């Protein structure tokens, strides 16, 4: 743990823009960490500061027990995978991968045979066999992604920073690369710090998930905890699967406009009061069956639905034009025939709501 990556009070401004407000965290070795944040949350800046491409205004980066203040990027031993891959366009796949080994400052690989063996090994590991002599313009996007990864991994960094590595790939390929990234990391035993704006990617890839919120660490937990127990209303918002009601706690009930919800358990302290309920935990009932004991609910009229294969997303509108979304997984429930502009009771188990007060 002491040898891993430690950030203390990192801050970085661009004019009036605060990219990093106060980031402190400690990342253990040999894990897959995903960093989730909406655009503008400072996630790319965080990676660039760790890599040494940018200097922080305040705070320190420690890695392997050493402070990295003022250490230039090429002496940090931290790999970086770019969103646009940033391959060397004038070199072949093989030369791209061999580049770091040949020209690095610290013990470059001189022997042609040793170089060849290392490059061939990593080419096989990332599944690029047979493409070594192609130019990087002659291969597909997914293959370029692998070259970028192989180029970094072959230099054996202990930490690899990945800046939206799957962002430039199409959906199909993205799914496959997810699994491969995890497998490759496990085989090599390095730490991956994977930045993404996609909540599903963050939850699927990371052993642990860091949620960045306006330049601060909003939450740092296992994917399961982040998903089920978001630490703040903003974290719940980034997860993109919660209905979030603003309001205030009043004698065990949560008042949001004209609606009032039952709460279960103790509400969590937070700067902002909010009542959050996951979209897939809501049941749709007729307007004649109100919530029973231990349940909470809201009356809302049906607007439209969106079918996406395994599930359906229903859009409702409650009092005051507030949108409420319900996600129904079709493996468990039949799609319901709902009448547009008709009222329905949206009901959930009060214990399952996450309440901040």
């Amino acid at each position: 743990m002491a040898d891993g990556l430690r950030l203390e009070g990192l801050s970085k401004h661009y004019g009036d823009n605060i990219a990093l407000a106060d980031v402190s965290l400690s990342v253990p070795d040999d894990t897959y960490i995903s960093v989730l944040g909406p655009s503008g949350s400072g996630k790319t800046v965080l990676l660039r500061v760790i890599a040494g491409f940018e200097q922080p205004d305040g705070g320190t980066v420690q890695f392997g027990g050493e402070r990295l203040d003022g250490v230039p990027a090429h002496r940090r031993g931290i790999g970086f995978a770019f969103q646009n891959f940033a391959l060397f366009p004038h070199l072949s796949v093989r030369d791209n991968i061999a580049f770091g080994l040949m020209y690095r400052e610290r013990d470059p690989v001189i022997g042609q045979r040793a170089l060849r063996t290392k490059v061939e090994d990593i080419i096989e590991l990332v599944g690029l066999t047979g493409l070594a002599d192609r130019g990087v313009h002659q291969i597909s996007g997914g293959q370029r992604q692998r070259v970028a990864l192989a180029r970094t991994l072959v230099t054996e960094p202990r930490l690899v920073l990945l800046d939206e590595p799957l962002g430039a790939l199409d959906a199909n390929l993205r799914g496959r690369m997810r699994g491969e990234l995890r497998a490759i990391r496990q085989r090599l035993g390095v730490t991956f710090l994977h930045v993404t704006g996609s909540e599903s990617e963050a939850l699927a890839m990371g052993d642990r998930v860091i949620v960045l919120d306006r330049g601060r660490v909003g939450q740092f937990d296992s994917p399961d905890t982040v998903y089920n127990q978001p630490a703040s209303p903003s974290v719940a918002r980034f997860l993109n699967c919660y209905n979030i009601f603003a309001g205030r706690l009043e004698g065990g009930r949560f008042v949001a406009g004209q609606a009032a919800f039952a709460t279960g358990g103790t509400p969590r302290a937070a700067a902002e009061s909010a009542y959050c309920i996951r979209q897939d935990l809501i049941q749709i009932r007729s307007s004649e069956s109100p919530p029973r004991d231990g349940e909470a609910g809201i009356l809302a009229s049906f607007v439209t639905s969106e079918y996406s294969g395994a599930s359906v997303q229903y859009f409702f509108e409650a009092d005051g034009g507030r949108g409420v979304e319900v996600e129904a997984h079709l493996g468990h429930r039949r799609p319901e025939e709902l009448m547009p502009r008709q009222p329905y009771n949206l009901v959930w188990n009060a214990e399952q709501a996450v309440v901040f007060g």
Partner: protein
Amino acid sequence: MNSAIVKPALAVYTGLFILFLYAPFIVLGILSFQTGPEGGPQFPIQEWSTYWYRHILGLTPPSRIAPLPIGEALIRSMVLAFMTMVVSTVLGVLSAQAFRKRFTGAGVVFYLIVLGMMVPGVLVGLGMALVANALGIDRTWWGTAFALHVVYTFPFAFLVMLAIFNRFDASVEEAAWSLGVPPARTFRRVTFPLIWPGVLSAMLFAFTLSYDEFARTLFSSGRELTLPLAIYGTFSVEIHPNVFAFGVLTTLFSFALLAVYAILMGISVRRARRLAIQEDIA
């Protein structure tokens, strides 16, 4: 707009424009084939001959017309242009590289550099002559004139490189650093190969601008003349078609230079296109 009228009209206009542009050169080319030594620099052509070309190369029997004093001047001008090209391009690349990051005084330094191509050449030449006299420095083509050529051509090389770096994706350099490759080696192995087409253009600019520079050289080059000065010197006596013949030869030389440039450029553009394709797909 009626394109049935506009298009032919534009074509005629373009044709006339090109004719106007090249007419002097064509006339010059025709007159260079005047008979010699009695034929003069005017129409009509009395008889077609290659006399004046042979005259330049010293292959004609001696006559009352002195051979053009260009032998040494030509070599001087080429050496000067080459020196200027190397120094200005190196300076241009380095200073444009410096301008990739904001630094204090960047605006002032920018205008100071660009000033070199803005100020009137005659004034700078005269100024250099005065300064050299005041400091007791001998005026030479390889010293004082060379310095002015660099001051003049460096801004062109600088601006070309500035435009190149403007479109340069710095993430490939960061990628190299993150692989443990130090910045100087990254420049040599990544940046330089990628900016090479721009460097070629900067070199071409610097060479050609220096090669036929007149105003700055006039006052600052001292007794040993460069080619443009030597040719100008012959005008003050009497003009013979040998000057035209020489003009044709130097133009052919320039074309050869351009051809070399085009070939080198073609090679690197083909390389750059791969980069463009890569970005399109990504």
